[in-house]
């Protein structure tokens, strides 16, 4: 049993945490790729910006300025610092639900990115700065995993994390592969490696496919891999699992409950394969994932948070 408002906050806490990590990683890859003056570097900038919904061509803005804005611009509600501020605001709302260990990791990180010296630190060593942000977010997740009871609070937070992840990875893949699943704009080896890095997938990918970096394999890995935590299939399986566990405690007559929607999406990914994707293009499937996630999000609200009171008053 937990307050509906609290569930809402925990869910968003998870989403903002995941968003902050994803953006930090895109920024790191973008900055690294542009160290060499190649076309692939420019391509990486374009991919990163398009994946966060800023589809400017990156021309005119240096990659450093672009990355700095992505990370530290407080007036941009989608920047890393804004995401962390919102994550912490949500954590403060539910301070009684998360452990001290978990809270302290997030608060520490918040204090770091909002420090008056943050801009100076970023300029002095953006790579170290971003590395630390990502490492701190890993510590946060580790603290949550090992200190919080894996009950409803934790599940709502994990649900937020995987919902956000499924959508972010889908968006990234849409940018790269929606138009042409096999090569398209991404012929270059360096650009393809950048995509894998943006999904934090390079090393796990290499272990499965070796150093032959093929667009088809990247797509297969990031959409269908069962074991990789950043594949869409893995994320949707987690969403389905957390929702089924929570729904067991809710007596609801709603037929299209969130767990049914999530189960359907999971099944769809389970039974599709990369040949089909190549035949029709990755676009339709990725769009389906994004749309279905939006429907699941609504269903979560209708079931747990914003349900009509009449349905739940005692008889």
């Amino acid at each position, binding site marked *: 049993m937990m307050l509906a*408002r609290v569930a809402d906050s925990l869910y968003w806490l998870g989403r903002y945490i995941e968003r902050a990590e994803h953006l930090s990683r895109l920024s790191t890859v973008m900055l690294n790729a542009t160290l060499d003056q190649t076309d692939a570097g420019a391509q990486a900038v374009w991919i990163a910006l398009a994946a966060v919904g800023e589809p400017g061509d990156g021309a005119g803005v240096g990659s450093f300025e672009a990355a700095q804005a992505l990370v530290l611009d407080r007036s941009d509600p989608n920047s890393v610092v804004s995401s962390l501020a919102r994550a912490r605001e949500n954590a403060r709302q539910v*301070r*009684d639900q998360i452990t001290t260990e978990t809270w302290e990791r997030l608060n*520490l990180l918040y*204090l770091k990115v909002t420090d008056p010296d943050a801009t100076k630190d970023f300029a002095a060593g953006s790579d170290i700065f971003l590395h630390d942000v990502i490492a701190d977010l890993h510590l946060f997740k580790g603290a949550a995993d090992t200190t919080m009871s894996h009950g409803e609070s934790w599940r709502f937070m994990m649900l937020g994390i995987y919902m956000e992840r499924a959508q972010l990875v889908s968006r990234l893949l849409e940018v790269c592969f929606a138009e042409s699943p096999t090569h398209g704009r991404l012929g270059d080896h360096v650009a393809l490696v950048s995509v894998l890095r943006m999904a934090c997938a390079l090393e796990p990918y290499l272990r499965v496919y070796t150093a032959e970096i093929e667009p088809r394999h990247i797509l297969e890995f990031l959409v269908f891999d069962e074991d990789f935590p950043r594949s869409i299939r893995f994320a949707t399986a987690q969403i389905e699992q957390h929702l089924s566990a929570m729904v067991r405690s*809710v007596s609801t007559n709603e037929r299209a409950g969130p767990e049914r929607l999530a189960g359907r999406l999971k099944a769809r990914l389970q039974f599709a394969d990369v040949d089909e994707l190549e035949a029709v293009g990755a676009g339709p499937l990725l769009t389906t994932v994004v749309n279905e996630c939006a429907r699941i999000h609504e269903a979560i609200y209708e079931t*747990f948070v914003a349900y009509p009171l009449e349905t739940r008053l005692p008889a």
Partner: protein
Amino acid sequence: MAAKTQTLADTPTLPMTEAAYLPGVAYDEMFTPEGDVRQHYDPLHGRMSTLGAEELAARQRTLERSFLLQGITFTVYGAENTTERIIPTDLFPRIIPAAEWARIETGLTQRLRALNLFLADIYGDQQILMDGVVPRELVLGAPSFRREMQHLYVPHKAYANVCGSDLIRCQDGQFAVLEDNLRVPSGVSYMLANRDAAKRTFPGTYRAAGVRPVERYPDLLLSTLKSMAADWRADPQVVVLTPGVYNSAYYEHAYLARLMGVPLVEGRDLVVHENMVYMRTTTGLRRIDVIYRRVDDDFIDPLTFRRDSSLGAAGLFNAYRAGNVVICNAPGTGVADDKAVYAYVPDIIRYYLGEDPILPNIETFLCREPRQLSHVLANLDKLVVKAVGASGGYGMLVGPHASQKERDDFALAIKADPENYIAQPTIQLSTAPCLVDGRIEPRHVDLRPFILSGEKTIVTPGALTRVALKRGSLVVNSSQGGGSKDTWVLADDAPSNGAGHGSARP
């Protein structure tokens, strides 16, 4: 006041600072007027003397860092945006001997018993008003008097379940009550956090001193709250009601909910249906039995009190009247900590208990009385004047420290609305050693112990010591830049290692 002239030879010194510790005319918690260390401070004084200035500064930084990290902050309301700050926290604990504490404990218990009887009476038959002990218009006309509470049954007659009275130690070393806080007193989370910090800062001294623990506060609070519902529900659902994350005491609300293991709810989580109170959970509506509210009376229920408030729940007060939920502290308790009613508390104690007050009041002049008003106006440069309705150090004139213009302006305000003001002599609060800018200096302190009252009355053996961090300042409120420190109540006053040389300086 008998100001003792301090010569350099009298000045107690603390070896690690080189500078002398210069107590003023006020009672000093650590040193006697002769410059000797009071016996109960011996172990701490010894420890302080072995730590260098750098070590102390490092420990102070660690302490502040830990508070910031934990988010032990309060919100400062500014013009532009609100920011979070930690309450300045001082490294050195303040120490209270067992015998002194025993007197404080019985005194506070007596006082709260009388005040709860007073509340039961004025919301009942009003016998004390009929007997003319307290002026009728003072009580019935007080803005904090809640007509809606009339003839409402409160279990155990416990109106104020949590009370945080402010005590000060006067020049003669005696404790006196400065004010009672019976509405939504805060600071208990700082008491607990300060204790955690002090244990880490001075572990050896802490262990050797024999300090009474305060850690049980959350479970005592929970059982107090549950005892308010014991009549009618076996395992009552308790919640903490907070105005929300923007309230300056939000940290405390979340802290208490977490340590009691009960939900922290906001008004928007509550639903009242057929005079029952529910909270909106992920699995539907769940009945609530006891609300520990940290929302002021006015904001509890827009149907009964302020219509423009969204902090409470519509219909909550009716559910309370119907006996379906308990609100702690009860609405309307504020009338007993009204600054004008305060003057009558000694009479209230005698009236209900037939006992003399154990803890004295500070002499108080009521501006509503013409003779006392003219005395106040003639002595503004010696008095502290307070607005009856204000708190947190606002609406206050510290006469001796004010300019002539400030006093003139205040005189006009008093004359315009004499009922709204009281005045008290300027009391030199006692001083205690504090680390300020790398030096150990005396700063004025007060004492806020916490008293729980339900089926039983319990005084937590500890308190929040608030510190006026500005040199010479007597204002300790956190909203006015005050800080705090841990308070050690000793379990036993007998010296732990040999007797006889207790007051010798190391």
